């Protein structure tokens, strides 16, 4: 192997050259460094989170009182649509991809992501895609107003001309996601340090491996369905038009074949994060590691055969409804395994309650509430009552806000000292946590009640009997929105390195390769792989 040793010498020579950090804007535009790209993803997702949040504020301001007061209904529809699109594709998914970029190479002992240039390309597509989406709001006829699910015929027959731009911006978001997912999967498959066997991999890495598989499997289906919307609207095809032999319900089948795995794309990495944080602060190894891995894989596989539970009321034979009902309920088994394992990890642990742990515990409790309302929605006859009410809105905000987003915040607090080298401002962090926790429940919990009482979603006006609850929901919404400004202040402070220096391990009970390198993590890590025993 003389060539290998030669290369090794050659590269050692290069080392100095390699270690300088590029300065200025070029560093960010041309970077191939997984940590830089991770930072870009995380900041982008936070900006999108605030943007989508501002739209939610408009929605809640309109719904503060019954009647139409602030915006006209068409604009209200644009707000619900773009809020959903931004939060799903602009906030949650890029935040997880940012975490994957920062953490996976450090966790498996790799020098970088497997395909660093493609990594940069994946990121920089996103700001452009959302620029297109957001600017379509200012076009003649307005932006997309058909809901983030863009059901036909709302998106075909009844949509404005900005739909073509919507379609192509979704296409390039999809390209970005697929490339990002390929990168993650190849990194995990091919870049693990010697001795990092499959069943030694940290849970975050496992969950992302499975998430990446889901992404590659379903993002192309989304691309397919938006393409059909485009040709139906502009080129005279009739995929979703009965007069031409198509079917609007077929739109929903294809969309949700993407959409349901997409839901797990937004939660599996969260499961991984929580499986890191709870063992650290309970000072016990994760209970049932192997069962966590199998549960994650089972959830992912089941996600392909449950899509039609989103469309119980739109027309299916009874046998199909029964199949999708039981398949959906089956998912609560592996999910239950996970919740059990987290609780069992905490059982008799030496627990401390630092802010990441607070968010993680809140996640376990509140995500479970979201899971249970999901179980209710899975029951076909019951769903006939709940469908398209605020109960559904309550359900998916519990799993997405107190689930996915709380886990992202937990992750941010947990790994921030590793990224910046300083501890975050603990006072601000506690304020952020408690304000978020209280307000998010004021915001979403009453939605269960108004939903069960029959208040329909996606409507700018409502019957008078819902007025009191909606007032409180709106107050909770504004409070939750404002609470995130505390987080912004804290992040700016941490990024300007104001705070106590963090040790390499940061947390007393933290285990894993990323805690063995100094804080802040050097620009390049594990250029030669560590050996895992």
């Amino acid at each position: 192997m003389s060539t290998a040793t030669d290369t090794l010498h050659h590269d050692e020579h290069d080392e100095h050259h390699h270690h300088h950090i590029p300065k200025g804007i070029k560093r960010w535009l041309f970077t191939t460094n997984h940590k830089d790209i991770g930072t870009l993803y995380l900041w982008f997702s936070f900006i999108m989170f605030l943007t989508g949040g501002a739209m939610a504020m408009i929605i809640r301001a309109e719904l503060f009182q019954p009647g139409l007061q602030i915006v006209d209904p068409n604009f209200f529809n644009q707000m619900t649509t773009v809020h959903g699109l931004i939060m799903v594709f602009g906030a949650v998914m890029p935040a997880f991809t940012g975490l994957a970029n920062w953490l996976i190479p450090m966790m498996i002992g790799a020098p970088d992501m497997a395909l660093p240039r493609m990594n940069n390309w994946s990121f920089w597509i996103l700001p452009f895609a959302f620029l297109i989406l957001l600017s379509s709001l200012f076009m003649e006829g307005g932006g997309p107003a058909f809901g983030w699910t863009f059901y036909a015929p709302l998106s075909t027959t009844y949509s404005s001309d900005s739909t073509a731009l919507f379609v192509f911006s979704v296409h390039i978001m999809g390209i970005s996601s697929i490339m990002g997912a390929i990168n993650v999967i190849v990194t995990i498959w091919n870049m693990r340090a010697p001795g990092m066997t499959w069943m030694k991999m940290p849970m975050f890495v496992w969950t992302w491996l499975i998430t990446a598989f889901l992404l590659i499997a379903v993002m192309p289906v989304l691309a397919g369905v938006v393409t059909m919307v485009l040709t139906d609207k502009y080129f005279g095809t009739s995929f979703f038009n009965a007069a031409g032999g198509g079917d609007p319900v077929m739109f929903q089948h294809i969309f949700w074949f993407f959409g349901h795995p997409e839901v797990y794309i937004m939660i599996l990495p969260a499961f991984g994060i929580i499986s890191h944080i709870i063992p650290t602060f309970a000072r016990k190894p994760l209970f049932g590691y192997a069962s966590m891995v199998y549960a994650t894989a089972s959830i992912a596989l089941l996600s392909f055969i449950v899509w039609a539970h989103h469309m119980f009321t739109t027309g299916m034979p009874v046998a199909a409804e029964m199949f999708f009902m039981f398949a959906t309920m089956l998912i609560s088994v592996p999910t239950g395994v996970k919740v059990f394992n987290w609780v069992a990890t905490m059982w008799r642990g030496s627990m401390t309650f630092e802010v990441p742990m607070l968010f993680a515990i809140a996640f376990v409790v509140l995500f479970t509430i979201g899971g249970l309302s999901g179980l209710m929605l899975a029951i076909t006859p019951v769903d006939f009552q709940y469908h398209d009410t605020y109960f559904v809105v309550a359900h998916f905000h519990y799993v997405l806000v107190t689930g996915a987003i709380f886990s992202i915040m937990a992750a941010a607090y947990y790994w921030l000292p590793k990224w910046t080298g300083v501890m975050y401002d603990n006072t601000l962090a506690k304020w952020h946590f408690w304000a978020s926790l209280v307000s998010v429940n004021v915001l979403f919990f009453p939605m269960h009640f108004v939903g069960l009482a029959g208040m329909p979603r996606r409507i700018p006006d409502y019957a008078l009997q819902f007025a009191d609850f909606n007032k409180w929901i709106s107050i909770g919404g504004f409070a939750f929105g404002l609470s995130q400004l505390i987080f912004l202040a804290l992040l700016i402070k941490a990024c300007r390195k104001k705070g106590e220096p963090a040790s390499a391990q940061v947390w007393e009970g933290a285990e894993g390769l990323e805690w063995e390198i100094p804080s802040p993590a050097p620009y390049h890590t594990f250029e030669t792989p560590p050996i895992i025993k």
Partner: protein
Amino acid sequence: MAQQEVKEYQKYYVPEQSIWPIIGAVALFLIAVGAGTFTVEVSKGKEGHGEWILLAGIATLIFMVTGWFRNQIHESMSGLYSDQLSRSYRQGMAWFIFSEVMFFAAFFGALFYARTIAIPWLGGASNNAMTNEVLWPGFEAVWPLLQTPGGTESTQMGWFGLPLINTLLLLTSSVTCHYAHVGLEQDKRKQLSWMLGLTIILGCIFLALQVEEYIHAYEIGLTLDSGMYGNTFFMLTGFHGMHVTLGTVILIVLWFRIQKGHFTPDNHFAFQAGSWYWHFVDVVWVMLFFFVYIL
């Protein structure tokens, strides 16, 4: 064992900063804006700049791909790539092809759904007798759907003739592509060059015949907007044709690289990727031939 591996570890090549990805992002931005604007302009018969933005985007993308690949080829030729990196590329290509499979799956799914569910229901199957009776009286559910519920008529495209010839052409090209690969692995450069050239020629003939078939289809009244049969026919064969075009371009680039003496029996990722892609478009065509033409 672990010790041994470390001793033989060749450092993974992490590229320096690169300008190409951001140019690629700008290219996709221009393509998305251009295509979005152009689509509206074409369908509304309006004047505008959409096509120019789209063309600028495509030009930028071609510029980016050329520059990026030039870098890659240079790096590969100067021996910077380890076996591990080569595996990364192979796995990346394999997953990319899987994503393409899923893209076609969406359109095949639409075809199967329409044939087995949507159209029979419109014809009154399952519990939809009244749908047929009240909304689409007189509509008969048959495939191919030569008369839509709305009354649009079209003609069937038979499988005998051009489609069969095209199937034979593509299947043959898969074989020649394979023998080109065998030639490369056994270092028989002449076989490699000839077989790859033959593959390219077969691909081009396929594309020419496909254009011929489209013209024929429009003459006999099978059009993109003639209902579900025309929709699935043109979308599936159209996207397949776009993939064959891209595959042919890839093979042509590979052929020129071979003339310059690139690739060795044990270092030829680009060739491998190109040939995988070619076999993939062949498999899609076989599926198409069965489900779109014959059945």
